[in-house]
């Protein structure tokens, strides 16, 4: 029992670090996108490196948490739910890394008139991640608050949908001066940025089922 006490303490700590790191990656993402569009490319590259480190850290923590929960046979009743959350939420940092790396490698030329919308998507995505982490934390600590967080995640996901549609309408509007290659490239980056909130919503969809299961 004393062994399990120590292991439990360790995993609770790991989970907190895991959530902190994902939230940190969300904050970095917004700043990185801002830096990119403001032409602060050196600072942008530093942020990409930090995001890279954060992604590696969450991967490592995810593996440790999974291993500890399995080997110590913890949470027999809700193990599957917890591991599903840990697995899917980790996709957020993977996606953030993929997006900033794509910006760093492909260096898309985004027209001035669309930059504000892109930055707004990054801001809303960051807010969505913060709420997502709140939802996950309340699943573990205070189940009664989880639904409020889930509601806010859905709100930000919808906001990002609206923004990306606005960008696409501008890009593909009649009389648009963009070439087909530019149009496709811009749409590609918009779709990519949209995926963060889509993942957050997918995590919350699972979470809301787990919340019902835990409340019974």
């Amino acid at each position: 029992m004393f062994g399990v006490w120590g292991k439990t303490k360790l995993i609770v700590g790991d989970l907190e670090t895991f959530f902190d790191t994902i939230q940190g990656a969300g904050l970095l993402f917004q700043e990185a996108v801002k830096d990119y569009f403001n032409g602060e490319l050196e600072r942008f590259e530093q942020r990409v490196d930090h995001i890279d480190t954060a992604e590696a850290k969450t991967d490592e923590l995810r593996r440790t948490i999974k291993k500890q929960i399995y080997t110590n046979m913890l949470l027999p009743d809700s193990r599957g739910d917890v591991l599903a959350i840990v697995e899917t939420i980790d996709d957020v940092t993977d996606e953030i890394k993929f997006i900033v790396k794509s910006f760093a490698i492909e260096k898309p030329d985004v027209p001035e008139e669309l930059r504000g919308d892109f930055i707004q998507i990054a801001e809303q995505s960051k807010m969505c991640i913060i709420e997502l982490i709140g939802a996950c934390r309340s699943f573990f600590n205070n189940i009664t608050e989880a639904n409020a967080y889930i509601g806010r995640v859905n709100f930000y996901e919808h906001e990002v949908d609206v923004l990306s549609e606005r960008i696409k309408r501008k890009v593909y509007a009649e009389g648009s001066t963009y070439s087909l290659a530019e149009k496709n490239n811009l749409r590609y980056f918009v779709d990519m940025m949209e995926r963060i909130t889509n993942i957050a919503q997918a995590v919350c969809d699972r979470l809301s089922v787990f919340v019902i299961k835990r409340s019974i």
Partner: protein
Amino acid sequence: MVTLNMPTILFFLSSGLFLGWSLGANDAANVFGTAVSSRMISFKSAAIICSIFVLIGAVVSGAGGAHTLGKLGQVNTLAGSFIVALSAALTVLFMTKAGLPVSTSQAIVGGIIGWNFFADKATDVSTLQTIVGTWFLCPLLAMAFSIIIYQGVRFFYKRMRVHLLWEDYFTRVFLLIIGAFGAYSLGANNIANVVGVFLPSSPFVDVNMGLFTFSKAQILFLLGGIAIGVGVFTYSQKVMLTVGKGIFRLSPITGLVVVFSSSLVLFVFSSKGLNYLLVSLSLPKLPHVPLSSSQAVVGAVLGIGMCHNIRNVDFRLLGRILIGWILTPVASAIVSFVFLYFMQNVFMSKVFL
């Protein structure tokens, strides 16, 4: 008094020891079934804790239930006790095979009444009323306890904002502690079913151990407790996994509530300490009656069902238990009467004095 040799004593005790083995194999699952089947506690840990605490409960607090059974009928020869215990064991076996609800406590009471009829001894009606009244109270009290405890646990976990992993840890610890308490209560309450009928004809003598005296009753309880322990180690794992996953799927927390509630019921009807407390508070004493731990568990599970929705309560199940209260003692009494006849007239053994 006729002095018997050890093989003969063991032969006559064998029916009681078989009842003990059966109790260990089946009823230990009521205490540790959820914990083991959900893998919160390993079977090995559960079996060790269960055996130790059943033994302590039996030796320390087993006298009350046995005393009540003694008031119902003083089976005064070893051969008679053997038949009463055997009848109870066979009734339990055949009714279980037939899929009917059955309890060792009810079977042993039927067996004693059968002996009373055979030996032409009067059955103490007021003791019988007390016993039957307690059977009726057992599932209802377990239901009431489980409603109160379940609401308390839910309130605690919601208010205290316990992390899911810590909740898991504390549930594990409490499953062990409450499991030990459950095993103690099971030993204290149910040992009377196992060796209670052998008390008046006990072949043992008091043993002075220096610091304390081991009474002949306690020697019987110790043997019964060992038989229960053997049942736990040899056969209960299979039953634990069936109880935990088959009949009703309980989460570890609801399992904890069920074990605590049903154990409390067994405890209040076997605790001497509680009676001292009640007397000191000028309250009436509770009778010490061997109960069915399975029926206490059913009551507790129904209580949890009621916390969610009254429609969750399967009243047919309660009806089946009620039928078992009548059917089991009657069947056991008839079996006991017939077997006593054979023992007396075919094997030429004295079954009463």
